[in-house]
């Protein structure tokens, strides 16, 4: 299943400026692994100790996931890694 991943602007130094890439993956974790295979260093920036880094959230088709790397991708979707936001 092919998904569209938007590369965070601060990490486009790893993608030679490329903004969006197509990735085939079944989970967010597999998506990060696929990104890292194409753009070495990406996983180290987005993850730590097998989880998304604290402060980074993942949005699937505009909806933030609470499952992080374990989030399954059951249909073709658009994936964004964004700063996690806190409310008051």
């Amino acid at each position, binding site marked *: 299943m092919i998904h569209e991943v*938007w590369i*965070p*602007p*601060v*990490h486009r130094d790893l993608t030679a400026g490329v*903004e969006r890439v197509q990735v085939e993956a079944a989970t967010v974790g597999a998506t990060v692994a696929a990104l890292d295979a194409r753009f070495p260093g990406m996983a*180290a*920036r*987005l*993850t*730590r100790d097998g989880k998304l*880094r*604290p*402060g*980074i959230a993942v*949005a699937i*088709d*505009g*909806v*933030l*996931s*609470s499952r992080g790397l374990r989030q399954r991708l059951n249909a073709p979707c*658009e994936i*964004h*890694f*964004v*700063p*996690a*936001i*806190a*409310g*008051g």
Partner: protein
Amino acid sequence: MTVTSPQYKVIGTRPLRPDGIDKVTGRAIYGADVKLPGMLHGKVLRSPHAHARILSIDASAARALPGVRAVVTGNDMPAIGDKIADSGESVVNLRYVSNNLLAREKVLYYGHAVAAVAADNVHIAEDALRLIKVEYEVLPHVIDGRAAMTAGAPILLPELRTDELGKQGDAPTNVAAHIRHQRGDLAQGFAEADVIVERTFHTATVHQGYIEPQTATVLWNEDDTLHIWCSTQGAFYVQEQVAELLQMPTSRIVVTPTEIGGGFGGKINVYLEPVAALLSRKTGHRPVKMTMTRAEVLAGTGPTSGSYIRVKMGARRDGALTAAEAELLYEAGAYPGSPVDSGCGGIFAPYKLENVQVDGYDVVVNRPKSAAYRAPGGTNAIFASESVVDELAEKLGLDPLAFRLQNAVREGDRRVDGPVYNRIGYVETLEAARAHAHYQTPLTGKHRGRGVAAGFWFNWGGKSSVTASVNADGAVNLIEGSTDIGGSRASIAMQLAETLGIPYEDIRPQVVGTASIGYNDATGGSRTTFGAGWAVYEVGNKLLAEMRQRAADYWDAPVEAVAVDNGIFTQNGDKLTFRELAGKLDVPVTVSASVHPQGYGPGFGLHIVDVEVDVETGKVTILRYTAVQDVGTAIHPSYVEGQLQGGAAQGVGWALNEEYVYDEQGRLLNTSLLDYRMPTTLDLPMIDTVLVEVPNPGHPYGVRGVGEVPIVPPAAALANAIYHATGARMHELPMSPARVVARLAEVER
């Protein structure tokens, strides 16, 4: 005024709140009301310096004072390495959190806690504080974010490196984080523009201003269980933070939340609880109560960030926005963690933009560590962007609401941080504002002006747990774990009543502590009516299923033969009301539900304000104020209106008067509500509200968070109104009389 209203029996009505009588008669138990046998009183010694190294602390004289039972310092806190932890919605470095509660090595702001005393009464504790000798080496300080970013600025945290969404810098800095959102071709977008406006704004540090100071009573029991009674937005957050800071298992900590006198984000972090716990243990397991003074609240708890924001936007003559760029610098206070991330995500949120770039910087300065404040970071950001939008509309000769409508985001449009919006009600909100009598009525008179501004907030779902049990008289006990700040007992009970098909008055809600309910995230992020509402919807359906089975058992019929509708169970001509069936239960019915829903949607608002400016004194008088907002489904419209009015009132204070004032040594000068000027009823007109109900498809009753959006537009709306009254564009908050006079003089020159 309500624009649309779906058909419900309970939802949309305005019943009395369950906690109302206790609160208006003074019987409700707040944190300061907690009294335990043998209870001691604790006080905190705070730093008189903005930045200093602690050379020594000598508490021997304090310990020798009769009535003093214990003294603690930072050395009594367990040593914690640089552990990054999720704390609810926030991410924190636990070492920084620990050092913020009791400083080790260095104090980083005026008011930073250095030591604490437990004594037989508050007066002895205060006397003891004066006997503690702290030797400091005063260091150069920096309280301004721009200055903190310059080469040669005093470095607050030598180990700090700039984080860029996981990419780490390699040099010491005061810039804790850099955020960037970027899409499209900015240069091309500005090249297409016929009009470009670029301005820089400054906003002052302001406090949440909850009326009830922080208070906590803690007993460290002989069996090493910790009992905490406190005023908090999230009992489970207190449990988690104390567990991490004191290195205890969460299961050994029981937190009982008292009623709360406001929080607005400022009562999510702990300040007193771990300190009172350490004192309790050191006194031989006596309970210790600590209550802050107002001065301590202002100096020692988290305000929200001051900021510098540069905004540049361009539009074609036909009114279409072509590009937008912003740079936001937020002062985090002494440790990383300003709300610059949400400022970056929200600054252009109301606008459809193809070419956009936003950069944000989280900068540490020698001020109290910032904490969440209602739509954290949103007011600062929107003050800047909505001021520029107003100027663009004027230069294009367009009506400011028409200009916003032309460029408004709709479902399917892309947010500045990337993801697309699902169903939102911004366009409906703008249309309601444009049609409102306030906007349609001409404003006349000298030095009078009307301003409008949009607002946005992300909202949140979070985790919620509830338990419901059926009483023999048909009433349903509802046990919930969300602190009730804005009427959530009522709004949650109403959703359960709607689900069950029984009267609201038959739901008996109670807010309980961590030992009595499943996990609940804090009441924050505009989440409780949404998230706990989801939980009671689930629990209501489970409960109906159980009751249906009981009816089947009673009638000795298969459960499939029993129908339930609107609280009435029927089978083959027989009928039982919910109440009748409750009286016939052989086996009690108790059900629980826990949820973590993700379908919250962001909220949008539009405020309209008329002002009159005294050009000699600079005083801004608000003549009329209307807050329009997409609120999803208004469960209890009065409390939704109250949220809009409360948010607008706080925003007015932020806009016109409130600010932290420091001297040259970095000492906070206005630590009382006489000098820190919050608005009173005399400063505010009746705030009219328009509830635009665009149901949120991510909730069974269409609920959308409402509490944070309304603090976002007021500063920009007032700035725009002041401009239209005087011809002076305001670029700095607060727009106090002195600043207005100075700006008018500047414009005249």
